[in-house]
Structure formats: C-alpha cells, structure tokens
C-alpha cells in the first residue's frame, strides 16, 4: 500500500514520528512513492530558494516613526474574555455609570461644547480648553471608558473572525456573555452620542449592536451556516476596521486633551 501525499507532507515536516521508520522503509522499496517524495521535496526546496526583498536602509527608523504615532501612552493591561469574565459585570456597571454621568452633563448643557462629535475633535478640544476643569476631567474619564469599550469589542470581533471555520459547533459561552455586556454598555454610549449630536458614532454603535446582539443571542453551539453568516456581516460591514479607526480617534483625542490641559491656560 502506497504512502498518501498527506503522510508524505507530514513526513517531510517531521510531524509523523511514529510512522517515520515505516515510511522510510517503504520509500526505499517503492519507486512510485519514491518519485512522489522527490517531487514533493523538489517543490519545497524551490520554495526555500525564494527570498523576499529586503526593505531599504533606514527601514527601522521609518517604521519606528510610523509605530510611535499609533502608540497609546502606556501599554494596556491585556485580558481575554475567558480570564476576565467574572469582572465583566463590574466593568459594565462602571462604564454605565460614567456614560450616564456623561449623558447628564451633555443634556444639562453645563458644558455643551465639550461634548463634540469625534470627527470634529479639533473643535471639541479648542472648546474644551476654555471649559472648566471638572468637565475636562469627565471627558477624559469618558474617553477612557469608551476606549475600553471599543478595545473589548475589537478583541471579541477578532476572536470571532479568527476562529476556524470548524469553530462552528464549538461553544461560545464566554463570547456570548461578553457580547451581552457590550450590548448593554454600547446602548448607553449610543444614547449619549445621539444626545450630544455625534450621529456618526451613534450609527456605528448601532451597527455594532446588531452584530453583538446576534452573538449574544446565538445558541451555545452555532451551526456552520450561522457562524459564516455572522463573520460575513462583520467582514462586509468593515466593523473591525471601523472599531479600530474609532479607537485611534479616541486615542488622538485623549492625547490632544492632555496637550491642552498641559498647555498655558
């Protein structure tokens, strides 16, 4: 009996140690398998011969300049949904409290111009510089909470997008619970965004909510069809890209706000 192509590939990469001796002996006695083996090794040697082009001199310096622009002030303490599941409810409560406080500020128009749409950040920041410090402090708190909300959303979306197709049928208990929490806090933020006139952010939170609700309400074991449908929605709406873009905007606003507060008043 001949050695299958799959077994030859595993043999080439040393991933079939238990069968190594058997395959070697067979290859010595079977011309057909020996030919197949030679063809495989020749192809993979050809792959080895290909080396990607090297970037030009100064690449490291240029890359650092690009990276540095995108860095937050300090690396986030990282978490995963599985590790942080017990903390999610507490975090959601805190986020909700901050959001409600923010909504109240915006609604009562104590410092209306502080709450400006994300796409109009420079205006917001210019206005913020003339505002009273407590309002700026509240905005910083809000931005931190909002940044965390989008960071959690990003991790959830990435986990779903990177799950294998065979992940359909796997259990998504933690992801479902996390999505449920994100729906709750996201609704508060969306309402706040609407009240403060940031319709772009509100619309985005709305788009996110429909996907998060789908995850939260999905059965514990999704069918392949449902799983693929969910990923298609995330992909086709460019949600991951939008989440990252907003995260960057929030970061920029935080940086700018810090600059304003540190500058002459």
């Amino acid at each position, binding site marked *: 009996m001949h050695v299958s192509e*799959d077994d030859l590939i595993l043999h080439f990469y040393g991933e079939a140690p238990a069968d190594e001796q058997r395959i070697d002996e067979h290859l010595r006695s079977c011309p057909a398998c020996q030919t197949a083996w030679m063809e495989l090794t020749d192809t993979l040697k050809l792959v080895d011969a290909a080396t990607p082009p090297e970037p030009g001199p100064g690449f490291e310096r240029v*890359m650092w300049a690009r990276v540095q622009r995108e860095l937050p002030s300090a*690396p986030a303490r990282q978490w995963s949904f599985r590790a942080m599941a017990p903390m999610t409810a507490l975090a959601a409560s805190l986020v909700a409290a901050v959001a409600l406080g923010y909504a109240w500020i915006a609604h009562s128009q104590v410092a209306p111009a502080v709450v400006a749409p994300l796409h109009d950040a420079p205006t917001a920041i210019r206005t913020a510089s003339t505002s009273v410090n407590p309002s700026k402090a509240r905005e910083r708190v809000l931005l931190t909470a909002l940044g965390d909300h989008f960071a959690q959303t990003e991790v959830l979306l990435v986990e779903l997008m990177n799950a294998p197709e*065979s992940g359909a049928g796997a259990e998504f208990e933690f992801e479902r619970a996390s999505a449920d929490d994100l729906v709750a806090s996201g609704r508060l933020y969306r309402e706040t965004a609407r009240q403060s006139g940031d319709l772009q952010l509100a619309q985005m939170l709305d788009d996110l909510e429909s996907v998060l609700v789908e995850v939260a309400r999905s059965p514990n074991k999704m069918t392949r069809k449902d799983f693929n449908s969910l990923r298609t929605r995330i992909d086709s709406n460019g949600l*991951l890209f939008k989440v990252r873009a907003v995260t960057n905007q929030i970061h920029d606003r935080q940086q700018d706000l810090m600059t304003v507060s540190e500058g002459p008043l």
Partner: protein
Amino acid sequence: MHADDVAAVAKARDGDQDAFRGLVERHSRSIYRLAYRMTGRPEDAEDVVQDTFVRAYRQLGRFEARSNFATWLYRIGFNCAIDYMRARPKRESAETHDTLDQMTREHVNPSMDDLVYAGEIGERVQTALGGLSAQERAAFLMRHYHGCSIEEICQSLGLKTNAAKHSIFRAVKKMRVALKPLMGDKACT
C-alpha cells in the same frame, strides 16, 4: 529569548517607549519578511509591520516573560496579516488568482540558473503563495519558514489540529500545482 528583549519588554510594559523602539528596530525586518510573504506587496507588508508592533505594544501585558518575544511577535504578525488580507478588497484576491492561473497555464521553462539569478523563482513562489487562502498561507509559512509545530500553529491561529494539518496539506498541494511549470522534467503527474 534575547537578553536585550527581556529587559526591553519589562521597560516597555512600564510605558518606556524608547525600550519599545529597540524592539521595533531589532525585529522589524524579520516581521517585514513574514508580512511580505503573506501579503505579496511591499507597501502592504509595511502596513502589517506597523499593525503588528502597535498591537504588540497594546498586548504587552499578555506576554509571558518565559516565552520567546520573537515567536510571540510572529504570532501577532501572522494574525495582523490575516486581518489585513481579509480587509483588502476581494477584487485583488481575484486578480491574484487570475495571475496564478495564467502562470500555471504558461509552460515557460527557462533554465534553473536563469530563474535563480533573475529572481523569478521568488516572484513565482510569491504569486503561488498569493493563490492560497489567508489561513492556508499562514499555516504553511509558519510550518515551512518558521519551523512552528502543528500545535503551535493551532495555538497561534486558533485552529484545531485537523484544520491546521489540512491547511498545510492544501497549501502544499496548491504550491505543487502552481510551481509545476518550474519543475521541468520532474513535473509531478
């Protein structure tokens, strides 16, 4: 793990950006090579390198000190490349497939020496890689160029063992078909 990496990671975790700069400068070329093989375009590869380091910085708290920083960074790099490719317009993938099909149909068979020196093998291998799905490409590159075990590939890409193996099987088979014109008399049947 590189001794300098250990110290730099510890400092970077505390917000020392100069320490992180050292890590970027030390590892950016190797991540570029990975990213180029994944994306096939220099400008895309540069974007992926940037994404990789930004994501790595945000995830430094998740890095376990006993691990190898370069290996950890590779994993992030592969996932960034996959995300990047998924976000890339689908028409570009279609163009890549057309090119691959065209290349396979053409039975151009110059001498090996000519190909090596002209760098054509690299281009053809890169085009062949472009014919793989993002998952197949990542699994194949991790196994072939970075010597990652099936288990490591599973962990990095969130795959089950069989899915990882089949990604590699499909990748190798597609590479064999795509590179067949270069194999001359040894062409597989």
